[in-house]
């Protein structure tokens, strides 16, 4: 019962802040709203015993929104709080499609005779998750490691204009020549 009330409260928060993301007039506020929405969903996860995953979600999104704020200030040179802006290209088609999407998904959610629960949740889902990760779903995690590696490489290649050869010379023997000294402890 209590969980039911909590769920609905969280749902309203999640959806409401979700809508707010595209209603507020600055990107910073939008990112805050998104963070709240994610936090609400993360808490919903906790409600269904997915403590680990729920917490991970909340933490990750908090970090991610922090990064986004930093990103916007540092790279795009804008003061998010002070730049109200309209950033859409018409809203009618997206609105129609979104409503249609909701009708399809919602209709499916309500009308489809979803299967009954198979088996009961284990006592400690986090332990079960760990066990799965290390056994039957080992390959998934192995691949995820490669994905993370690839992401790092690809993102760095795209995001930085200066390569090591720009900094250290073609034979990597020069002193680093950075227009703006950066890094920690230099």
């Amino acid at each position: 019962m209590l969980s039911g009330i909590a769920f609905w409260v969280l749902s309203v928060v999640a959806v409401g802040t979700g809508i707010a993301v595209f209603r507020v007039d600055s990107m910073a506020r939008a990112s805050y709203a998104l963070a709240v929405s994610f936090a609400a969903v993360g808490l919903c996860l906790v409600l269904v015993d997915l403590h680990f995953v729920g917490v991970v979600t909340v933490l990750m999104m908090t970090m991610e929104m922090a990064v986004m704020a930093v990103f916007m200030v540092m790279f795009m040179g804008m003061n998010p709080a002070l730049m109200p802006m309209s950033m859409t290209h018409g809203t009618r088609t997206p609105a129609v499609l979104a409503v249609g999407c909701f009708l399809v998904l919602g209709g499916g959610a309500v009308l489809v005779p979803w299967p009954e629960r198979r088996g009961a949740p284990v006592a400690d889902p986090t332990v079960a998750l760990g066990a799965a990760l290390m056994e039957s779903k080992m390959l998934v995690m192995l691949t995820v490691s490669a994905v993370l590696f690839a992401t790092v490489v690809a993102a760095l290649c795209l995001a930085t204009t200066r390569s090591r050869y720009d900094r250290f010379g073609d034979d990597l023997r020069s002193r680093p020549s950075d227009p703006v000294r950066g890094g920690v402890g230099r």
Partner: protein
Amino acid sequence: MTLQAVLLVAAALFSVGLYGALSQQVVVMVMMGLELMLNGVILAAAGFWWFTSPSPDGQVLLLVVITAMTVEMAMGFAVATLLHRVRGTDSADAVTDLRG
């Protein structure tokens, strides 16, 4: 709190995210829309896990989705940075050299 309710909320989140992804010009804002869609997917996955099959598979899937969200966002930032650096804009609509 039933599966249907959870899924309805998830559908709402997904649709709102879709609206954002479709309507926004700025790449970062489109990414937010995509994240919101993923948010809905996460909620649906949790609901499915709890109400239909509380097996480890569902949990791992959740974890994978969250990971995917993270890496996609990281790439999104990288691409947005690239666009800003090379083309001096943050709007996906502003670059239409490639068409036809």
